[in-house]
């Protein structure tokens, strides 16, 4: 090529196009959680079904589990509920719930009508524990390993793809590690 400098605009254009294409395909709602790789935040809340008993960080330690943040006012929680039911039925992993800024009666009714995939639910009335978990867009689902370390976070409703391609493989891998 006689004048290689003429290529520069074309190269700059190509680089910008690639960067913008990547940027446009990122989901700005998915803010990476600083909790990944850290132990679960300490908490202790009353249980949804049995207010006398408590559910806390100690219950999320010892075996691989999921923590699903949900509320009856959350429309997309309704959308992912069926998947949670199916996931619970496989028996592959314990699902705990964090019932976030909800009303006890409404939440109990929801579980009665749509089914209850949870081992137990913590009742986070004022959302204070939600803040410690960095919750900002229900539903959110955390994968927690046997040592009580947060391994993964899904923001927004679960989909069959997310469950089959991200959650279940990770759960199996964490389990096999012991």
């Amino acid at each position, binding site marked *: 090529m006689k004048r290689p*400098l003429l290529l520069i605009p074309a190269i700059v254009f190509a680089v910008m196009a690639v960067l913008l294409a990547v940027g446009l395909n990122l989901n700005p709602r998915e*803010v990476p959680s600083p909790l990944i790789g850290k132990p679960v935040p300490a908490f202790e809340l009353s249980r949804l079904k049995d207010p006398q008993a408590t559910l806390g960080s100690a219950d999320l330690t010892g075996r691989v589990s999921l923590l699903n943040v949900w509320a009856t006012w959350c429309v997309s929680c309704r959308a992912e509920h069926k998947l949670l039911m199916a996931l619970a039925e496989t028996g592959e992993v314990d699902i705990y719930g964090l019932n976030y800024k909800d009303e006890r009666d409404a939440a109990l009714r929801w579980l009665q009508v749509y089914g209850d995939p949870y081992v137990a639910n913590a009742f986070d009335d004022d*959302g204070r524990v939600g803040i410690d978990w960095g919750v900002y867009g229900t539903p959110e689902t955390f994968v927690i390993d046997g040592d009580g370390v947060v391994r993964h976070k899904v923001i927004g409703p679960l989909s069959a793809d997310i469950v089959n391609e991200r959650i279940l493989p990770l759960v199996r891998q964490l389990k096999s590690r012991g």
Partner: protein
Amino acid sequence: MLPRLLRPALLGLAMSMPAHASTLADFDFTGNVSEAHYKEVISELRCLVCQNESLASSQAELAQDLREEVYKMMDAGKTDDEIVEFLVARYGDFVLYDPPLKPSTWLLWFGPFVLAALALLVMGYTVRKRSRGVEQGLTAAERERVASLLGEETENRKS
């Protein structure tokens, strides 16, 4: 007078406003916390729900909760750094309008300067090359052609 048709719409709008919009009036600024300082802190933090609003301007429920947390922390005598640390530990650097300087943000901080330097280099190179070209001047054949073109033009003007 408002057009009749508009009135129900405005009423509906007014009724859809959050009933418990938490405003600065909800907080007591007569004690440990100065209002100006509080405003300054919350306007430098970003709301995660309405992502282009600050914690100060957002009416998302989470923003209201976080404003309350910030107030409580200030009331308890926490420093600004401690408050920011609290939020970053939970929500990440995303809550900061002023991103910290670290390897993952180098491109963000230095990228524009690198681009500007590249642009200057290319410009310098081009300008030097061009001025060299001018010094060389025109060849005899080119001179002749210019003369004939200019001559033609003056002819045209006359007619």
